[in-house]
């Protein structure tokens, strides 16, 4: 293993930044290429983000010992001591093999010399190439030469070489000689790279290209990305692009450019529902009437269904109908959407603005080098992901890249504990997430203590219906058992955890009742989940997990019932379990297909509220329908009623298309009650971290720090944190391990930044600082009871200093100079 790998990260959006920062923290030399002049990609234009509805990109940034993050709003630029940033460059090609790769970077954006530029804007005036006005306030025209980012000062101009014709007018107009078009042809070669991480994201669907809703003909039909610019709080009210009049009624049309066989787009982009809900909620604040036209509201995450409920409370109207067309009412500046919200009921609704909710471009393909050896592609560069999932995917990809890079030469001795920081990590739970976390850490040369309640490793992964995924878990379990750095405690439980990050003390009790104390620097909680219980009338009722296991158990030679009825979202997605469990829909669809493959004549009926498959899983839904599965939507107010009679299950439900009550009979009833965390609140208590009302462990920041709990050094992942499918649980495990690894690396390298200190002679031990510290970096010393600061957890916010009346809690001596002026 090379101590400091040379890593190239392609793409400077949120994924690329996260991967780059993780790798830098783990000790790599990182090169970051971003084709735009500024980092943060799409997010730069998202002024308002779910769930807080405000911006917050800065929260992805670590507190930087060099102090550079004092300036680090992404809008102001990006500086990181471990990362060499190449703004304006795109990777053209990658050659060679891992350990000796070379990448060719080509300039895509040319920055104007900001030392010379005096922001006269003459160049923008004369530039003949107009560009789409994304993410600007509309006050300054956007040309091929324009401001580098909407929020950058005007003298930070950049030329998009994709659009630029190199006509030279800007250069001639510039009296300061700040523009050097010859630099446009610049090419850079990076050699001796150990690996590369591809995180350049996907392309968004442009409605004009696919002639969606004749958008090119209507100035007031825009996309969700355009609407973000209108929402930008830097602007004023929300105005119509066509005539600048304020918007009073707006519509969102979901699935523009997706979920269509006609467009060869049999996929769901997965984030558009939430984007539209957010945009409509924010527009409601400006008193705009908002309607969302949708098919399935895919609010599929721990907190998303509740967000939908809040949007409804704010008055966002949801109309379940995909419109056929948008009509311009002649003479009037109105867009009319004829639609049929319920069968036999057609209505026209008029709007000032229609927003097409677009996702991934159906024709988008990753770059050619994506699949090469040594190039690790973040899942965020295969499909559209929301911010939190991008962050997780990026961390996990960085972890995989690092792990593979190191596999060759494992050290034969444990890393030494330094600076009173224990390098060991406690992993609780050995399901897919816990095992992934443990092995990622071990690959990073960090010793692991793996505690599992059961007598074997693998958790739910062992009962996965996919043979490949079962195999993956078995391999992970076998590797964990064999790994020199992984110490496994089966049939054991953690009963307490005290101390600060870097110096936790936990007690473990094994099956014989013996207790053992473990010292560790960090912990990863991966205690998983289980199926929510269902009240079953008889054995003809099964939950979706049981049924799927049974029907997949015998491969393709098993038996299937002649008729089966699925009821999805059974007692879930409503209080008190008001969240989508994310796994049931695709499991149900797979089970439907398996049932039909075992018994083609079987009658399969699915009662559902919204089918929540995302990404390419949409194809499962399409296939299930085309193979004859009957799908009947129901509303939570009128769920289908159940009855067991004469050895058959009878389900009464109404078919909304036919407006008739029907009775369906089946041999088998399958309920999908969702999943619940297995030990959430118990873990929350032992490890002193937050948990939700449902018992899921809560993260410090839902978007930017998804696998960190509020307590430094404690990381959370998998089903214990939120409902996730198998693959995501694995990613979360790796991401949590990557964060733990980074934290410990930071400690082991003695790059500790102590922001605050305690003056014991002045301290009254009142404990106000314990309460005030948001990161639980304060603790009372176990023996002396004196207040202490955990340098790994402290982020320097000063809450403890401000709350301490006599400044027994004080800034560190280095910082005091800075703060002195204020004191």
């Amino acid at each position: 293993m090379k101590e400091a790998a040379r890593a190239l990260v392609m793409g400077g959006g949120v994924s690329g930044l996260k991967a780059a920062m993780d790798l830098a923290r783990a000790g790599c030399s990182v090169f970051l290429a971003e084709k735009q002049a500024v980092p943060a990609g799409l997010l730069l234009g998202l002024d308002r983000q779910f769930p807080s509805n405000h911006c917050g990109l800065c929260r992805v940034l670590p507190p930087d010992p060099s102090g550079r993050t004092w300036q680090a709003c992404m809008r102001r630029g990006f500086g990181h001591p471990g990362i060499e940033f190449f703004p304006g460059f795109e990777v053209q090609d990658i050659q060679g093999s891992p350990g000796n790769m070379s990448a060719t970077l080509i300039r895509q954006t040319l920055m104007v010399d900001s030392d010379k530029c005096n922001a006269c804007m003459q160049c923008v005036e004369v530039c003949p190439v107009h560009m789409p006005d994304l993410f600007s306030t509309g006050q300054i025209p956007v040309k091929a030469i324009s401001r580098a980012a909407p929020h950058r000062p005007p003298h930070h101009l950049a030329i998009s070489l994709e659009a630029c014709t190199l006509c030279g007018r800007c250069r001639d107009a510039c009296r300061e000689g700040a523009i050097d078009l010859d630099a446009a042809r610049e090419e850079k070669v990076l050699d001796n790279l150990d690996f590369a991480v591809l995180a350049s994201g996907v392309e968004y669907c442009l409605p004009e290209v696919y002639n969606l809703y004749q958008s090119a003909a209507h100035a007031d039909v825009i996309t969700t990305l355009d609407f973000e610019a209108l929402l930008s709080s830097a602007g004023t009210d929300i105005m119509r692009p066509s005539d600048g009049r304020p918007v009073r009624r707006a519509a969102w049309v979901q699935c523009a450019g997706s979920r269509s066989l006609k467009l060869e787009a049999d996929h769901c982009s997965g984030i558009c529902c939430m984007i539209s809900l957010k945009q409509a909620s924010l527009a409601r604040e400006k008193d705009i009437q908002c309607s969302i036209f949708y098919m399935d509201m895919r609010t599929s995450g721990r907190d998303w269904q509740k967000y939908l409920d809040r949007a409804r409370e704010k008055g966002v109207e949801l109309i379940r109908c995909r419109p056929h067309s948008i009509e311009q009412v002649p003479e009037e500046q109105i867009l009319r959407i004829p639609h049929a919200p319920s069968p036999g009921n057609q209505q026209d609704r008029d709007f000032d603005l229609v927003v097409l909710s677009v996702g991934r471009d159906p024709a988008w393909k990753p770059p050619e080098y994506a699949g090469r050896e040594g190039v690790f592609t973040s899942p965020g560069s295969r499909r559209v992901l929301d911010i939190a999932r991008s962050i997780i995917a990026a961390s996990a990809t960085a972890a995989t890249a690092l792990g593979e890079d190191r596999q060759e030469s494992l050290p034969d001795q444990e890393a030494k504990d330094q600076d009173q920081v224990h390098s060991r990590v406690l992993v609780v739970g050995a399901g897919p997430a816990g095992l992934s976390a443990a092995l990622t850490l071990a690959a990073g040369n960090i010793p692991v203590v793996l505690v599992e309640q059961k007598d074997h490793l693998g958790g739910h992964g062992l009962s996965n219906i996919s043979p490949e995924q079962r195999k993956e878990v078995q391999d992970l379990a076998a590797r964990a058992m064999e790994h020199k750095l992984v110490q496994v405690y089966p049939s054991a439980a953690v009963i307490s955890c005290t101390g600060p990050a870097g110096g936790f003390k936990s007690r473990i009790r094994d099956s014989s009742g013996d207790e053992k104390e473990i010292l560790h620097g960090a912990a990863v909680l991966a205690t998983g989940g289980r199926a929510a219980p269902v009240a079953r009338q008889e054995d003809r009722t099964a939950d979706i997990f049981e049924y799927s296991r049974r029907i997949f158990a015998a491969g393709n030679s098993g038996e299937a019932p002649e008729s089966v009825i699925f009821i999805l979202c059974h007692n879930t997605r409503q209080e008190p379990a008001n969240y989508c469990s994310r796994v049931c829909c695709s499991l149900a669809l797979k089970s439907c297909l398996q049932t039909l493959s075992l018994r083609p004549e079987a009658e399969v009926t699915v009662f559902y509220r919204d089918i929540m498959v995302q990404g390419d899983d949409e194809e499962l839904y399409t296939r299930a329908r085309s193979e004859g599965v009957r799908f009947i939507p129901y509303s939570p107010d009128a769920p289908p009623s159940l009855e067991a009679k004469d050895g058959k299950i009878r389900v009464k439900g109404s078919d909304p298309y036919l407006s008739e009550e029907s009775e369906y009979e089946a041999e088998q009833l399958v309920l999908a009650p969702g999943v619940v965390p297995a030990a959430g609140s118990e873990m929350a208590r032992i490890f002193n971290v937050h948990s939700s009302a449902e018992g899921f462990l809560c993260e410090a920041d839902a978007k930017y720090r998804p696998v960190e709990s509020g307590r430094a050094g404690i990381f959370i992942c998998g089903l214990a944190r939120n409902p996730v499918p198998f693959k995501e649980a694995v990613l979360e495990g790796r991401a949590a391990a990557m964060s733990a690894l980074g934290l410990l690396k930071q400690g082991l390298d003695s790059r500790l930044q102590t922001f605050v200190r305690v003056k014991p002679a002045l301290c009254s031990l009142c404990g106000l600082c314990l309460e005030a510290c948001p990161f639980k970096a304060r603790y009372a010393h176990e023996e002396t009871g004196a207040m202490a600061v955990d340098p790994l957890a402290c982020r320097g916010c000063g809450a403890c200093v401000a709350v301490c009346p006599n400044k027994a809690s004080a800034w560190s001596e280095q910082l005091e100079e800075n703060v002195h002026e204020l004191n």
Partner: protein
Amino acid sequence: MHNFSLIETRGDAGKAVSMLLARLLEQNMVQAVIVPAAVPPSVLPMTRLLNNPADLDQTSPLAPVAGVSAATQAAKISRGPQEIKIAAVLRPCEIRALVELHKLNQAQLDNLLVIGLECPGRLENQDYIDLQDQNQDLDQRFYRDEDLQSRIAITCRSCIDFLPENAHLNICVLGLDLDQQAGIAWDEGPGADAARALELKPGQEPGERGRAVDSLRSQRESAREEVMSRSRETISSSSGLQSMIAHCLGCFNCQRACPVCFCRECVCSREAFEQNLEMLHTRAGRTGGIRLPAGMTMFHLTRLAHMAHACVGCGQCSSVCPIHIPVADIFRTVAAATQKELDYKAGRSPEEPIPHLNFSTEGDQ
């Protein structure tokens, strides 16, 4: 409180109460008692820790004086080992201070049996010493002599919180002829356990008590309104405030005497010695020089900012001021406004969280 019992005083209520305390020790209900006692040659009863029932003879639980607030000492001693349970005789304001200190981790309420004393007010220390020369049995006379009662500390004259709250056992003096009887009141819990050990029989509470309490309260309320409105008016301008605190010597007595000011060393007292000469030099040039030690206004405002929510209105700050700045008037005036704004009352309940730690996301700016 739900239960009430009368005890015979036989002309010396203080002694009768002392005997009850002695019995608590004898019954091993508590292992120590904190109570005011003047041990010769001192004539001023001061907080004293006793653990021998025989020593209770010399105590003055009803003495109308509080050398310093007993809350500070009760708090400190309560943080000792768990196995020593202590009975503490405390005035209402002292109990309130104790409750505040408990929230700040400065007291361990579980270790205390709090015996509250209904408080018609306390005499200033010097007044008590002087009056004792003239009155042999000052402690008893005080409760029947309205003239003596009118000489209580200025803060007490406008105190409306004279009934003890959050105590386990109350000693009742209002509306009773203390030469005959004193009252003991208690609720379920440790108070009832103690009452059982003391073999107190619940009985009827005399009706006069209610009338006495009401009349005292209405008298105090109007006094308080008068004091508060006067001080409100005075301090509500920079010059008014300055006129009150202009003569502050910077002795920090008020801070040290304050039972809720819990810092081991006040940040302001430290700053007084740490002042930056360069800065003072610049400032001195602005208007007619600069008073040293500088920052006395800052000191008083800091104390208000830090502790107004926790002020229990005991008046010790005024009592100890060598140049008679009405510190308590200022403090109580600001405290009333602050506690109202924060919907908080100092000492109301040990469960009520410190308002500055309520980081709820509800509400607006």
